[in-house]
């Protein structure tokens, strides 16, 4: 169902709310469309605050007893039957025709975006082998616990070697003992061990950023710079990139993959045209380059409706062959220049942020995969033909915004292990898991270091020992902070045994009664 939408002032919306049902005059030409029965009004350009039932859209002919959006230059009269206040985000809607809604001088015809029906995934535990399940339950009965992976290996071994019940019980007992032994001891300094385990092999990593690594013709930051980027939780990685997988129907079809790759590549006006500025007569001329347009798979007819959305008021657009002339109603040097600046970065095609997209055939999986330079996870996941469940980006912050902290934790582990593996280093994954657990502990992705978790330690002395000593001590003095001396660094400072290993254990004597 199509809906009419426009931007208005809060005052006007309140007036309509008061006086409805009433006719309302707008200052733009809206083609009469009988299928439109609803209208949404926004004030901020971010949320719709009013929903109106409308019965007629007609040209304005000086009717009386109607509300007016403006004093003059009115063009359309719409008859509002009923109006109510609502709260709905603009992002929930898609534009069908007309301009963009967040512009005062325009209207748009919109439809509500399709929404995915939220279904919950299946329980992973439910899918386990019944033998594995019963083994875990049996072990738990005695107050022990066994990881799923070991339980699986045990049952597999039982089958493979034909172990009898009695021997199997002995095997379980021995496994449990070994498992307990391998656990980390209480008050073991896992953080230090982790830091050493990543740091030591890290010294052998390349300091240089390699280009054209990984995927052909694609820049990917690797080695130490990438590792630093990950633990620093940078807002955007230096070489963001995405791996886009296609749905079952599309993954075998090269043409579909190529056309999808082309459609997401962001193309600016400057990529396909030359822009000339004429300041004396006050207009901007866009000279379209046919060849470049063909290369990008762009048609002239596609550019025109997009240009109407330009965020400049009172722009007059006229077309000539291969030329588009844009001028202002009241041209001034400043305005023309502003228009030129806007046009230079004007996006005519594609998704924000995606600079390049190439298609490659994955020999192993036998499917076409799209690799991109630049990342826009939310945008790509919405597209048709894209298998959103497998689509990935290397931008960890973006993952945390689109898929949540847990996915970000997963991404940190994945990215850091693959960076280390690419350099030929084998760091135990448990260290990297600890790092990513710490980085996502607070529910946000936080850096390791001054601005992240080290800067948020509870103890003043520990913070002061890390960096900017005087600042921390001064602040602590000002607000009267108390240090409970629970950590390691602060106890070294005051000269006490540290709370690690045996130092953390206190002996107490319980008298037998």
């Amino acid at each position, binding site marked *: 169902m199509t809906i009419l939408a426009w931007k208005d002032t809060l005052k006007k919306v309140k007036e309509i709310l008061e006086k409805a049902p009433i006719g309302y005059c707008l200052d733009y030409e809206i083609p009469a469309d009988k299928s439109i029965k609803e209208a949404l009004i926004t004030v901020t350009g971010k949320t719709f605050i009013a929903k109106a039932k409308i019965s007629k859209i007609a040209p304005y002919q000086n009717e009386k007893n109607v509300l007016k959006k403006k004093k003059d230059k009115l063009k359309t009269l719409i008859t509002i039957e009923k109006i109510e206040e609502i709260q709905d985000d603009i992002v*929930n809607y898609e534009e069908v025709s007309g301009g963009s809604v967040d512009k005062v001088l325009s209207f748009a015809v919109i439809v509500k*975006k*399709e*929404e*995915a*029906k*939220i*279904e*919950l*995934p299946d*329980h*992973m*535990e439910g899918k*386990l082998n019944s033998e594995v399940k019963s083994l875990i339950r049996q072990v738990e009965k005695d107050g022990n616990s066994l*990881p*799923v*992976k*070991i*339980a*699986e290996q045990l049952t597999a071994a039982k089958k493979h070697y034909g172990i009898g019940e009695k021997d199997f019980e002995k095997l379980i007992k021995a496994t449990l003992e070994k498992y307990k032994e391998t656990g980390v001891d209480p008050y073991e300094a896992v953080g230090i061990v982790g830091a050493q385990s990543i740091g030591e092999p890290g010294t052998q990593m390349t300091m240089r950023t390699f280009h054209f690594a990984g995927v052909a013709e694609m820049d990917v930051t690797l080695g130490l710079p990438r590792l630093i980027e990950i633990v620093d939780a940078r807002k955007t990685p230096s070489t963001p990139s995405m791996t886009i997988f296609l749905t079952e129907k599309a993954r075998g079809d090269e043409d579909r993959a190529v056309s999808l790759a082309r459609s997401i590549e962001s193309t600016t006006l400057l990529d396909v045209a030359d822009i000339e500025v004429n300041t004396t007569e006050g207009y901007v001329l866009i000279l379209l380059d046919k060849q470049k347009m063909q290369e990008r798979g762009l048609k002239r007819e596609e550019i025109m409706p997009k240009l109407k959305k330009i965020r400049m008021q009172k722009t007059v657009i006229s077309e000539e062959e291969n030329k588009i002339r844009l001028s202002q109603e009241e041209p001034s040097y400043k305005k023309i220049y502003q228009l030129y600046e806007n046009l230079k970065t004007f996006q005519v095609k594609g998704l924000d942020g995606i600079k390049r997209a190439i298609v490659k055939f994955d020999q192993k999986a036998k499917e076409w995969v799209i690799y991109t330079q630049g990342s826009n996870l*939310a945008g790509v*996941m*919405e597209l048709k033909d894209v298998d*959103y*469940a*497998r689509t*990935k980006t290397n931008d960890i912050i973006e*993952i945390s*915004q*689109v*898929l*949540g*902290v*847990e*996915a970000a934790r*997963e*991404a940190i*582990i994945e990215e850091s292990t693959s960076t280390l593996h690419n350099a030929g280093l084998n760091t135990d*994954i*448990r260290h990297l*898991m600890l790092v990513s*657990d710490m980085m*996502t*502990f*607070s*529910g*946000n992705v936080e850096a390791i270091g001054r601005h992240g978790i080290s800067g948020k330690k509870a103890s003043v002395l520990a913070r002061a020992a890390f960096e900017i000593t005087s600042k921390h001590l001064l602040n602590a003095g000002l607000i009267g902070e108390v240090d409970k001396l629970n950590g390691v660094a602060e106890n070294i400072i005051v000269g006490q045994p540290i709370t690690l290993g045996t130092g953390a254990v206190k002996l107490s004597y319980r008298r037998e009664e």
Partner: protein
Amino acid sequence: MAKYNILMHEMVPEHWLVPVKEEEKILKSLGVTKGQLPKIRRTDPVIKTLEKAPGIGEIVPGRIIEIVRKSRTRGIAKIYRTVIGE
């Protein structure tokens, strides 16, 4: 929201809302308080999506979310996060 269901994404582990009745049992077995558990923001995309799933409704701060991860070391690992406001 969107045309996709992020709960089905490969990188998103299972998230389950723990019934209030079971909270105490879990905290006791772990020997921690709610405040000591890792956190998850109420505005986290997964929480927002979970709220839209049938039969769950609003998730207020203080509730516990059970997360079932596909672990590379354990096979399946269960962890818990406390929901926090902002």
